[in-house]
Structure formats: structure tokens, C-alpha cells
């Protein structure tokens, strides 16, 4: 089930607004790819373009090197941002229906529905109407709707929005499992730091353009070193402001986040901190994705 989704030069304008501006990136199989960017960056438009739900002014969507058509799309799974299920339809019947629309036999659709509802812990709600479910359970059913036909590509628009930590873990586990099984998984989020643990690769966009893409580990460890230093009784990290080559990125509840230039020796920072008081924390930190994003734009 190896596949490769390629987006080439996607451009979409809505009147004066340019939602996508020559956006190109690819989604390989076997990894969870986080598709990140602030609100209005063009994430939803990109995902809709994969399913032909928005017209493109320019650009192409390719699957395994060929243009995507209706037959290919039937092997994709989609979870739209604003969700999309019949509110008054029974959960089980709805999933079977969607399975059959994706060319499954009635028997296979029923079996897959049962399996996914069990896997996501909502098997007892198969006979309920969707509208009777809690937000978290609706989200699980929505995910099941994207998965029921065993798609080769999974495109999920903000699948974690509004979920509690248990829900995030449950859905996160499924995404990782799908990727391990050889599926292409692309999911979007505007909360960059929330998804750091979940995805191995991220693509960050803004104003319809690619900002940065790469492995999370590489992005987090590249660039300047970062230190978190906490000095008892110190609230504003004024001791750090005078050290040459040290930039105070933020001070949060007494913990100062420092960005060190190449030339700076971390020992000199420790000495300065000890001079200000008793050092209770001194840790090297990875870059967070929000910092990667901010620095890439700077």
C-alpha cells in the first residue's frame, strides 16, 4: 500500500485574496505528516484541493506520479474541518453507507464498521444518531468515517481540535498505527506545539506559501542552542540581559528561555545565573515548532 501524494504549485484565489500561492510539497507513505500553519494559512483549501472540492487556478495534485481522479479519490479518506456526517442518521448505518460509497461490498462495509467502532471505543453507539453523541465521540465516528474503507491516503483537517487529552491520545495512536501500516497520513493543526509529539515530519505554511518542511527532530535540534534557566527569587531574568550573544526569548513564571549565539559558552551563562541567586533549573531545550515557525518567518 505504498503511495506518494505530491502537490505541485497549487494556486487558488478568491477574488482579491490569494489562499494558495504556488504551494508545493509531498506526503510520503509510512510517516505521520503534520500540516501546520496559523489560521487562514491555506491548510483547509489545500486539503479540499486534494479531493477536488475546490477549483484550482493553477497547480496539480498527483498520486503515485499520476493526476488524481475520482477512482483514486475513492481510495482516500477525508475528515473535513467542520465535520461532515448526517446528524439524524444512525452511526453504524452511516459508516456502512460511506464504506459502500467507497466501493466496498455490503459485507465488508459492515465488518469494517464494526471493527472501527470497536477500535475507537464507540461500539456501543452504533445504533445512536450522530447528533446524540458527545463532541469527543462524534470526532471518533468522524475519524472512523475517514478510515472505514481502508484508505491509502488519510487527510484529516484539524482532527484534534476540541479534544481532551484522552481523545488526542486515542486519535493520535490510530494515526501512527495507520502510518506504520504503510498509509500516507496528512493532518492539519493550527496549534503547532500540540502536535509535536505526534508527527515525524511537518510542513509549515503561511499565506498559502511553504515556510519550512522537514523531520521534526531535525527542525528542533537545528539552529541556535536554547537554554531554560530558573534562578530562585528572580522574576525577570535581568541577569541574562547583559551577557553578550545571549537573547532572552521569553520569561515565563521565573523560567527564562535563552537563545545562545554560536560563540557563547554555556558555562559563562551558568556563572552569571549563579551570581544572581540559587540556580534551580538549567536545561538545554529543543526548539518548539512555534519557534521554528517564527524563526523561519523572521
Amino acid at each position, binding site marked *: 500500500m505504498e503511495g506518494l501524494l505530491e502537490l505541485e504549485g497549487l494556486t487558488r484565489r478568491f477574488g482579491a485574496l490569494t489562499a494558495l500561492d504556488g504551494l508545493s510539497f509531498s506526503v510520503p507513505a509510512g510517516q505521520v505528516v503534520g500540516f501546520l500553519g496559523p489560521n487562514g494559512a491555506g491548510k483547509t483549501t489545500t486539503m479540499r484541493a486534494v479531493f477536488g*472540492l475546490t477549483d484550482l487556478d493553477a497547480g496539480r495534485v498527483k498520486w503515485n506520479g499520476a493526476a488524481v481522479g*475520482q477512482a483514486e479519490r475513492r481510495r*482516500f479518506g477525508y475528515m473535513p474541518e467542520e465535520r*461532515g456526517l*448526517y446528524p439524524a*442518521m444512525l452511526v453504524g*448505518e452511516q459508516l456502512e453507507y460511506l464504506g459502500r*460509497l467507497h466501493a466496498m461490498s455490503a459485507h465488508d462495509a459492515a465488518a469494517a464498521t464494526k471493527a472501527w467502532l470497536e477500535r475507537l471505543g464507540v461500539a456501543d453507539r452504533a445504533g445512536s444518531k450522530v447528533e446524540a453523541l458527545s463532541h469527543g465521540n462524534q470526532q471518533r465516528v468522524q475519524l472512523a468515517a475517514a478510515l472505514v474503507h481502508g484508505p491509502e491516503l488519510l487527510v484529516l483537517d484539524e482532527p484534534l481540535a476540541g479534544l481532551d487529552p484522552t481523545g488526542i491520545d486515542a486519535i493520535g495512536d490510530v494515526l501512527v498505527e495507520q502510518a506504520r501500516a504503510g498509509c500516507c497520513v496528512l493532518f492539519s493543526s493550527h496549534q503547532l506545539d500540540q502536535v509535536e509529539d505526534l508527527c515525524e515530519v511537518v510542513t509549515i505554511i503561511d499565506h498559502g506559501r511553504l515556510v519550512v518542511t522537514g523531520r521534526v527532530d531535525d527542525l528542533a535540534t537545528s539552529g541556535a542552542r536554547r537554554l531554560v534557566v530558573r534562578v530562585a527569587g528572580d522574576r525577570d531574568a535581568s541577569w541574562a540581559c547583559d551577557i553578550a550573544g545571549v537573547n532572552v526569548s521569553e520569561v515565563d513564571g521565573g523560567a527564562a528561555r535563552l537563545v545562545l549565539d554560536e560563540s557563547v559558552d554555556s558555562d559563562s551563562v551558568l556563572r552569571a545565573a549563579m551570581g544572581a541567586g540559587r540556580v534551580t533549573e538549567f536545561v538545554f531545550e529543543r526548539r518548539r515548532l512555534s519557534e521554528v515557525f517564527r524563526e523561519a518567518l523572521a
Partner: protein
Amino acid sequence: MNGPIILVILAVIVALRVWLRRRRRSTRSQSWAPAGLALLKGAVGLVAAREVRERFRGKVFRVGTLLILLVVAGAIVVPVLNSGKSRPQRVGVVGALPAPLRAAVVASATSVGTTVHLVPEADADAAHGDLRSGRIDLAIVDGRELIVDKAIGTVTSTTAQLALSVSKNLGLAEAVESAGLSATQVAELAGAKALPVKSLQPGTAKGAAQTTSTVGLILVFIMLTQYNTWILIGVMEEKSSRVVEVLLAAMRPVQLLAGKVLGIGLVAFAQAALVVAFALGLAEAVGSDLLRGTAPLVLVSTLVWLVLGYAFYCWVYAAAGSMAERQDQVQSLAVPLSLPIIFGYVMALIAAGSGSSSTFFKVLAYLPPTAPFAMPVLVGLGAVTWWEFAASAVVSIVCTVGMARLASSVYRRAILRTGRRVQLRELFSRMA
């Protein structure tokens, strides 16, 4: 007479309820695709099957069907109860009633459209008692006196008409007798025939055909309005719930649209077929005029135009539904769309009621938006030939094809545009 009719109605209602409940249980437990739609492969068949299943399950459909059946039952049963035709008038006879007078009574009954059953009464008191208890409708005492239970006010009831006619004929018989005419002369007088009356303008259609076309009109109106509203709201809800994005990721817009229109159409025709079968069965059971004269023709043409009317309007409503995603936006679309339907309906009701058709009304019978109402009425009035009927149907089919193409094009452009209501202008400026 009332007892059996009420029993028939109750039996049908109970049977319908049991059937629907069983159906519901069976769809829940196992196969979910209505059998007939298994033939329709692919996305269109799946969409249509879902519509059929969900609609049959809905309360609106079940309650609506029951209401329609009640209305139809009323329309069939009430005229039967009102007309005395099926019930002979019971006439009590006190003393002797010579043969010529007896013949005069029978002839009077025929002239007012009923039959008589003569009941011998012992004396005037016994006749009075039977009149009061309702065992007899009219008493004749010694061939010279007529007695009814209540004073005759209006002459609408069969009994009143019969009493007036009998009194006139008996009076005439008495006069003939006192004039001392010969047997031949009496026979000649008795054989007198009424002169035919010529009219300058054709008469108006009355009776079963008229009732059928009026009831048919009401049904076509109710069903077109109901099923088109389902399409409008159904399309709007798919858009507003965003389920359309999931669906269109797997199929083309035209497939979703066609499946929806087909599925709801099948529900409509299933309901129409049930209503017609019920109407025919009930008419047979109570001996209604529905099965006589031109009424069956009117019934068939009403069904044909229900199909043609639905086929024409369903596309319009689907396209409108794709332009809205909130209830208030739907309202602003539904009102102008319903105007031609209401106009056609009212014009047809007027024509069916007056029993005559104007040239303007005949024109309406050729325009696809109003033809579903106007044409069956013309059939009921006997004011249309088969080829005129066929020509109007062809016009409607051609326009329906054009409408379907236009509506698919609007639907495809509007269904994925969210936010404010889509304006037609925007869609067509993009089409250019």
C-alpha cells in the same frame, strides 16, 4: 352503512401501521437497501436507497400518509353517504294503494334518482310511530294523504324530493280519475314524456369525475409541495452539515443529485400508489362512483402528471437547496419557488369547481410548471383530446431535461460554497 366503512378505514390504518413498523424493524436488523434498488448499481443507487430508507423511517412520512389516506377516505365515503342512491326510500302504505297510484309512486322515485320499498302499515298511528322511529321515510294514507316526520324545508334531501314528487303525481292521478277519462286516455297520459331541453352552452361536468379531479388536485398539490420541500431541505442540510464534502470526495455532484432526486421520487410514487390502491379498494367496497364514467381516466392522468410535475420541479428545488445552508436562507428561496405551484393549483381548483375551462386555462395546461394541475382537470372536463394530452406531456419532458441540466450545473457550482447565500448571478458569471 357507516359501520362497515369505518371498519374498512380502521383496518387499512392498522395494516399500514403494522407494515411500517415491521419494515422499520427489518431494516434495522439486517439488509438496509430496499430490494428494488439493488438493481441500481453504483453511487446513484446507494444514494437513492439511503433516501428511501431514511424517509420511510421518518415520522413525517408515516403521519403524512395516514392524513392523506384519511382525506381520500373522506372524499370517497362522504358522497356515498349523502347520496340516497344506494339506499331505497321506505314508504309506509296505510289502506289500499291502487296499481296506477303505486306506479305513480315508483315513477316519482325514479324521477328523483332513488328507489322505493313499500311497507304495509296497519293504521295511521302505526305509520306515525314508524315515521318517528325512522323505520319509514314517508307514509301514504289511503292514497290521499302524505306524511313525513319533519316539515320539509329545503328540498335537498332525497326524502323531501321524493315527497314533493309523490304529492304532485298522486294529485295528478286524482285529477285524472275525477275527470272521468277513458282507459286509453289514462294510459296515454301515464305515458307522457318530458320534452327534451336544449341548452345554448355545454353543461358543466358534475359528479365523480369532478370530485376525482378536485381530490386529485389537492393530492398533487400536497405531494409536490411535500416532496419538493424534502429535496430543498435535504440538499440544504447536506450542505450545512458539511457531509456533502465527505460524499463528494467519493462521487461526482451529479451522482449525488440524481440519487437524491430518484430516491425521494420513489418514496413519492410509493405513497401515491398506496393512496390510489387504497382509494380504488375503498371505492369498490362502498360502491362509490369513483370506478364509473371518466373518473378512472382522471385518476390515471393525475398520476401521470404527478410523475411529470415531480420530475420538473425536483431539479428546481435541488438547485435552490444547494444555494442555501440555513433555514432562513431556505425560506427566502422557497416562497418564490412555490408561487407557480400555488398559481396552477388555484386556477385548476377554480376550473374544476366551475366545470368549465377558459382559453387561458388551456394555455396553462401546456406550460410545464402549471400543467400538472391544469391537464388532469381538462381531462375531467372532457375538454382535451389524447394528442393534446400527449403534446403537453412531451413539452413537459423536454423542459424537464433542460431544467435538469441547468440545475445540475447550478448545484455543482453552489453546493461547496459556504458562508452567505449563493446568488445565481455569481454562479452564471463564473460559468461564462
